C-alpha cells in the first residue's frame, strides 16, 4: 500500500526546497515599521492608537471589529509616527500604523524567553479567549482568524483535530524548519488546541519529503496514542484543507461546507506554535517564520520576522540579486501573488518571499485550447477548469454558480498543467468574484 493521498487530481511540481535545513534566523528591526490593518481574512482591524502614542512590544494597537476579525499588536516598541494609508502587497493603499522604533521594550505579562512551559493552566473557554485576544490567525496563508474555529456551534463535537504540516508549496520550508526546531512547543500547542476543542484524537499530516521532521515529531510524541503522525504522498495541493481531510480520513466535505461538517478542525502547524506562545507565554502574534528563497537569492533561508518589516529588508538580508530578479512573490509559487513593490510590509499571512529569475517570470504565449482535458484531470476539486474559464469569461454568472465555481480553491494546478498556457485561473477568479458579488446582492434583497 502506498502513502496516503487525496483521491482526485493533483500535480507534482519540482520541489526546489532551496532553503531546506537552514536554521531559523532573527532579523534586525529597521527604524520604522508599517503595520497594515488588513492582515486577516474578513474585516480589517480598527486602530486604537494615535500619532505620538508610546507603544511597547505586544501592546494592542488595533481592535477587531466584527465576527471574522483579529486584533493586531505592536511588533516593536517606540512611538506611533502616523496612522495613514500605505502601500500593501497588492499595490493598494490600505490603512496602516507606522511606528518609529525605539529600543525593544516588551509589554508587561509577556514571557519573552525560550523556556518550554508544558503545563496547561487555562480552561477551554479561557484558551479561546486568549487566542482571540492575541490576534492569532491561520498561518498557512489564508489568515482565517483562529478563534472562530474554536467557537464550535452547540451540538457538534469535532472528532479529529488535524494539524496541517504538509507544506506542499514548492520552495517553502518555514513549517518544516519550525517542526525541526520547535517540535516540543508544537506538541504543547496541539495539546492546548485539543483541550479547547474537547477532541480526543489528533492527526498530523506531513508530506513524505520531510522524513527528518516526521521522525523528530514522532520521537517527541513518544508512546502517546492520541496524536498520530501520518506521512503523506508528495502531491500538490496536499495541504488544501479539503484534500488533507480526504487523504487522512477518506471523508469528503460537501460543497460549500466547513470541515466541521465531517467532524474535523484543521489548523496549520505554524498556528499550533503561535497558539502555544499565546496561551503559555501570553505572547500575541507579532512575528512569524518566513522563507526567503528563489534562484536569484544567494542565501535562501528561514527567518523569524516581526510583522511590519518591509519585504525589501528580507531580500537584502538573504542577499537577493535584484538585477536577475524579474518578479517577487508573496507566498509560494503556486498560490502566492506577485507584489508590485518591495516597500510592502510582512504581514501575518506572509509565509514566504520568493524571487523569480527574469527569464522565468513572464507568462508563456497563450494558445488555443486543444481540449486535452489535462486541467480537468488534475483539478483536486473535480471541476472542469477549461469550461468554467469560458463561461466565467462570458459573464454567465448563474451558470458558473451552478457549476460550483465557488468550490475552486485557486490552487493553480490547472494553469500549471495547461499545455497551451491559458489563463484559466485568472478567468475563474473573475467568475468567482462576480458570483460572490451576485450572492451578496441576493442576500441584501
Amino acid at each position, binding site marked *: 500500500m502506498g502513502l496516503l493521498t487525496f483521491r482526485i487530481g493533483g500535480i507534482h511540481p519540482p520541489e526546489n526546497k532551496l532553503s531546506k535545513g537552514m536554521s531559523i534566523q532573527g532579523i534586525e528591526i529597521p527604524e520604522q515599521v508599517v503595520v497594515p490593518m488588513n492582515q486577516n481574512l474578513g474585516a480589517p482591524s480598527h486602530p486604537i492608537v494615535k500619532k505620538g502614542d508610546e507603544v511597547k512590544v505586544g501592546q494592542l494597537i488595533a481592535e477587531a471589529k466584527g465576527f471574522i476579525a483579529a486584533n493586531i499588536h505592536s511588533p516593536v516598541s517606540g512611538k506611533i509616527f502616523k496612522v495613514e*494609508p500605505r502601500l500593501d502587497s*497588492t*499595490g*493598494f*493603499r490600505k490603512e496602516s500604523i507606522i511606528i518609529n522604533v525605539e529600543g525593544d521594550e516588551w509589554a508587561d505579562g509577556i514571557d519573552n524567553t525560550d523556556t518550554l512551559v508544558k503545563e496547561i493552566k487555562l480552561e477551554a473557554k479561557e484558551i479561546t479567549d486568549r487566542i482571540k485576544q492575541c490576534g492569532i490567525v491561520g498561518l498557512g496563508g489564508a489568515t482565517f482568524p483562529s478563534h472562530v474555529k474554536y467557537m464550535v456551534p452547540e451540538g457538534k463535537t469535532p472528532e479529529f483535530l488535524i494539524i496541517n504540516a504538509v507544506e506542499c508549496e514548492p520552495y517553502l520550508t518555514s513549517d518544516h524548519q519550525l517542526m525541526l526546531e520547535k517540535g516540543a512547543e508544537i506538541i504543547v500547542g496541539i495539546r492546548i488546541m485539543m483541550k479547547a476543542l474537547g477532541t480526543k484524537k489528533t492527526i498530523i499530516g506531513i508530506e513524505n519529503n520531510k522524513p527528518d521532521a516526521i521522525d523528530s515529531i514522532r520521537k517527541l510524541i513518544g508512546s502517546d496514542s492520541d496524536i498520530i503522525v501520518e506521512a503523506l504522498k508528495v502531491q500538490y495541493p496536499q495541504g488544501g484543507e479539503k484534500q488533507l481531510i480526504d487523504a487522512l480520513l477518506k471523508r469528503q466535505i460537501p460543497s460549500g461546507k466547513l470541515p466541521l461538517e465531517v467532524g474535523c478542525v484543521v489548523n496549520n502547524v505554524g498556528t499550533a506554535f503561535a497558539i502555544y506562545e499565546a496561551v503559555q507565554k501570553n505572547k500575541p502574534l507579532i512575528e512569524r517564520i518566513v522563507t526567503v528563497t528563489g534562484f536569484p537569492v544567494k542565501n535562501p533561508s528561514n527567518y523569524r520576522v516581526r510583522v511590519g518589516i518591509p519585504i525589501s529588508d528580507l531580500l537584502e538580508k538573504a542577499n537577493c540579486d535584484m538585477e536577475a530578479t524579474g518578479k517577487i512573490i508573496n507566498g509560494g509559487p503556486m498560490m502566492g*501573488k506577485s507584489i*508590485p*513593490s518591495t516597500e510592502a510590509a510582512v504581514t501575518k499571512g506572509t509565509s514566504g518571499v520568493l524571487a523569480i529569475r527574469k527569464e522565468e517570470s*513572464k*507568462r508563456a504565449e497563450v494558445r488555443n485550447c486543444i481540449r486535452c482535458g489535462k486541467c480537468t484531470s488534475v483539478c483536486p476539486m473535480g471541476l472542469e477548469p477549461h469550461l468554467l474559464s469560458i463561461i466565467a469569461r462570458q459573464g454567465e454568472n448563474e451558470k458558473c454558480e451552478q457549476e460550483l465555481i465557488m468550490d475552486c480553491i485557486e490552487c493553480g494546478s490547472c494553469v500549471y498543467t495547461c499545455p497551451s498556457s491559458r*489563463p484559466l485561473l*485568472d*478567468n475563474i*477568479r*473573475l467568475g468567482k*468574484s*462576480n458570483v460572490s458579488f451576485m450572492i451578496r446582492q441576493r442576500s441584501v434583497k
Partner: protein
Amino acid sequence: MESAVLYAILSMSAIGIGAAVILYFVAQKFKVIEDPKIDLVDEALPGANCGGCGYAGCRAFAEGMVKAESMDGFFCPVGGNDLMKSLAPILGVEAQEKKPQIAVLRCNGSIKNSIPKFEYDGDNTCSFTTNLSAGVGGCQFGCLGGGECVDACDFDAMYMDPETNLPVVKVNCVACNACVEACPRDILELRNRGPKEKRIFVSCINEEKGPLAKKNCSVACIGCKACVKVCKFDAIDFDNFLAYINYEACTLCRKCVEVCPTNAIHELNFKPRKPKAEIPAKVVKPKVDGVEASKVAAKTEAPKAEVKAEDAPKEEKKTEDIKDEAKATPIVEDKKETSSKEIVSDEKVESIKDNK
C-alpha cells in the same frame, strides 16, 4: 395509377381547406389587438437595441412609452431631441427637451503621466485587474487600460489609444451609458455636450490627498481647492480631496482651467485662448499666477497649447490644425495630447459632413 395521383391531390386539398377554416377561426378567437402606435414608434426608433433608454430594446421602449401614454422619463439617447420631437405627434403629447450628452473619461493617467511601476502580463480585463492590484501606474482610482468600455460600446464610438493606453470617446457617442456601466472604477461619466461641444471637466477621480495622488500621476487632482475658490458660480463641488465640476451649473468661463496647478481640469473645443506673451504660464502657485495669467490672457493672442508646449510638443501642432478648421464647425478633440492624429482628422471630416 392515375387514380392514386388523383386521390392524393384531392385528400391533400381537403386537409388544406379544413386546416385553413380551423386556422381562420382560431386566429379570430385569439387575435392580439396591439396598439398601432407601437409599430409607428418602433419604426421611428433607431433600432440599435443598445439599452441606453433603460429598456431591453427599441420595441420594449416603444411598448412602454405607448402604454404609459406620456413621454415622461422616456428618452432615446441615440435619436436625441429630434427623434423625441418626431415621436410626440404619434402619442399626441409634448416632447421633453433634454440636453445631449456624451461620455467623458475622467482620467488622464496615460503612460506618460502615470508612469508604469511594474509590468503586468496576466489577464488584462478591467473587472479582473481592478481587484488584483491598483494598476501598473499605482493609482487605485485610475484607468486600468483593459478596454472593457471599448468592448461595451455598440456604436464604434470609442477606441483605445495605444500611445496613452487610455480609451478615447469619439464624437459619434450617443450617451447610451454602456461604457459607464462597464467601467469597474466608475471613471466614465455622461456629461452635457455643451454648446458647440464645449466642455470643462476635472479629468481625475483620485480621492487621495495631494502628495499621494501626485506621487502616482502628474496630472492628478491634488485637492488644492484653487478652482473652488476661483469659481464664481458655485459650480465646483469638493469632496474627498477631489473637485467635481457640476455641468448643469458650469458656465464654461474657463477660470478654473487656468488656476489648476496640475492641469487636471480639461477644456475641450474652445477657441485657442488669448495669449499670454512668451512666458510659459504653467501655473505652479495657483492663486497669484493664475489671476495674473488670466489678465494677460485677455490682451494678446496665442494658442493655448503653447502654454503647455514644454511637456507636450505634439499638442501645439494639433491645436493649429484645429484652429484652421474650427471656424466652420465644432470639433471634438477627444483628449488633449492623447488622440492619434489620423483618426482625429477622419472624425473631423465626419463631423463636418454631419453639420452640413
